[in-house]
């Protein structure tokens, strides 16, 4: 369950992003565009970062030998809000001196720290996956349960609708749905919009599987018993039938989270999701689409690596859960 441990770490870091990030996500260092990653070195008992000086004209930097500052822990820096409530200025690490910045993953075309933006972006990218899954799977389970339980024309209508949604290639449908929202929304509205769009598409496949399971479950004796005891249809579905599908649902949910994360990434990447200056893994990668940037400043691909690690961890966890839930072997 290495995947689970990585995910716990990622989500913890996302939760405390403001504290772990050395700088604010909007903070621009106008003297240091495309600053290369600074790697701390061990000097005596301290980790030190060298000072970088720009070469003439282009964005090329050289470390100045002998001129360095030690990294301190719990230093004061940019203001941020922990959990969106508590205002704080203490950061996990930093030099506390503006002339000796710690850019572990370099800076982007506006001189913003890539690592800090990556951490702030993880709050959006990681939470969209989980919230999206919760919403669409709850909805999908309810619809699937109703469809399988009542059968007849309810079932036919719902299943045709599912087929309709599933027969459109996902991204084409996502873009059509995106068109129905007005431009110029606030960050929070865009965030909600992405979740709504992704959930609108995601429930269909879940509903189909749950419907199939419900079809066989409703013939079982305990359902008959529940009915005989006078429980309502809704209660039978929610209390008796759906809990039997949980082991499948949990595995499927874990393996589906990556699709939601990638959905946000693609939308933001194409410029129709989270907008600048807010950070998300998708809109950070937009800068890397410029081949000139990409060739000279490859650290702009860092969000891609973060996505890869997250997806890998979810796949690991999902596979592990599947093996655990599979009682046959």
């Amino acid at each position, binding site marked *: 369950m290495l995947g689970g441990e990585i995910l716990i770490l990622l989500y913890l870091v996302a939760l405390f992003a403001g504290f772990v990030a050395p700088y604010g996500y909007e903070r621009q260092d106008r003297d240091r565009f495309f600053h290369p990653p600074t790697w701390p070195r061990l000097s005596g008992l301290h980790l030190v970062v060298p000072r970088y000086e720009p070469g003439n004209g282009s964005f090329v930097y050289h470390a100045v030998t002998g001129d360095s500052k030690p990294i301190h822990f719990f230093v004061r820096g940019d203001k941020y809000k922990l959990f969106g409530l508590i205002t704080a200025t203490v950061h996990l690490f930093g030099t506390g001196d503006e002339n000796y910045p710690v850019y572990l993953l370099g800076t982007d075309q506006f001189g913003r720290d890539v690592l800090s933006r990556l951490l702030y972006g993880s709050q959006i990218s990681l939470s969209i996956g989980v919230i999206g899954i919760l919403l669409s799977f709850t909805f999908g389970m309810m619809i699937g349960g109703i469809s399988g339980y009542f059968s007849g024309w309810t079932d036919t209508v719902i299943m*045709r609708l599912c*087929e*309709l949604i*599933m*027969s*459109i*290639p*996902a*991204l*084409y*449908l996502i*873009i*059509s*749905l*995106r*068109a*129905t*929202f*007005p*431009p110029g929304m606030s960050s929070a509205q865009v965030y909600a919009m992405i979740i709504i769009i992704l959930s609108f598409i995601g429930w269909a496949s879940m509903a189909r599987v749950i419907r199939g399971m419900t079809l066989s479950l409703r013939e079982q004796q305990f359902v008959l018993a529940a009915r005989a005891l006078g429980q309502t249809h809704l209660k039978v579905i929610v209390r008796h039938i759906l809990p039997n599908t949980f082991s499948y649902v949990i595995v499927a949910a874990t393996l589906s989270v*990556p699709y939601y994360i*990638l959905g946000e*990434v*693609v939308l933001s*990447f*194409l410029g*129709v999701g989270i907008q600048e200056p807010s950070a998300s893994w*998708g809109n950070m*990668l937009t800068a*890397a*689409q410029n*081949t000139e940037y*990409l*060739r000279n400043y*490859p650290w702009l*691909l860092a969000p*891609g*690596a973060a*996505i*890869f690690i997250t*997806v*890998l961890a979810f*796949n*690991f966890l999902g596979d592990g859960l599947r093996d655990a839930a599979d009682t046959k072997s």
Partner: protein
Amino acid sequence: MWSFLFKRLLHMIPLLLGVSLLTFLLMSLAPGDYFTTLSQNPQISPETIAHLKARFHLDQPWYVQYCYWFKSVLQGDFGYSMAYKIPATSLIIGRLWNTFLLSFLALIIAWGIALPLGIWAAVRKDSWIDRGCSLFAFVGLSVPDVLLSLLALWFAASTGWFPVGGAQGALYDFMPPAQQFWDRTHHLILPAIVLAASDLAGIMRRMRSCLLDTLRAEYVTAARARGLGEGLVIYKHALRNAINPILTIFGYSLAGLLSGAFIVENIMAWPGLGRLTMEAFFAKDSYLVVDCVVMATGLLVIGNFIADLLLAWSDPRIRLK
């Protein structure tokens, strides 16, 4: 067999109708249209805009628009692209062909590599080849298309071995046919490989597990007990049964391929349907967006139909149902 195929074919019609209706409804819900930006231009009089709107039936409710659109589609006319100022049919056919080329080549690369590799891994179960393939599959499943496309772009830009974006070189029109063909292929290869790579891992894993399942079956043991050679047992008896479940994921893999193509086209500037959709989306050319979505769905539905055909061909039980 024929009635099965006929039924599947007939099933496609309400589906495409439903898809076009749904996208039309969505586009009608979209705030503003192509003429919203034009109306802010003081040089264009409100009368002209009203006139143009009436010409494209944009002043009517969406279901009336849909009827007009549907009528012209039945006559093979996909309307007029307001943003490109040319008939949408010619625009779409070219882009559709590009997307088809890209997806088809990716399909061949992915399946051509994944099937032999999956079989190889299953036959040599637990060897270092199998382990290597599993690791590769796991990594491959987790690399997002976005990252892979960007890496390919980086590769193309820094080595200069492949052109960066586009479907043809700047001097394409002046080239002799053989060179034109090479130019097109040269532009196509890298996007196709990227697209194939994202699909490859899943198919390979599936092939391996299917073959392993059939190798455990009793008739395989029986075949071995009769003294048949290992090659005959695997390729004649086991593989032919293992291939059926693989064919069922063909349609599924196609859906992933088309969505993947959307990303690859937009990042690597391959002029296909996905890129056209984004361009039409930004220009608020709503009819063109509908056309693109319907076309992409059509591509997927036809692909699924072919998957059914293949399945019916390889598994007689389905034909008889």
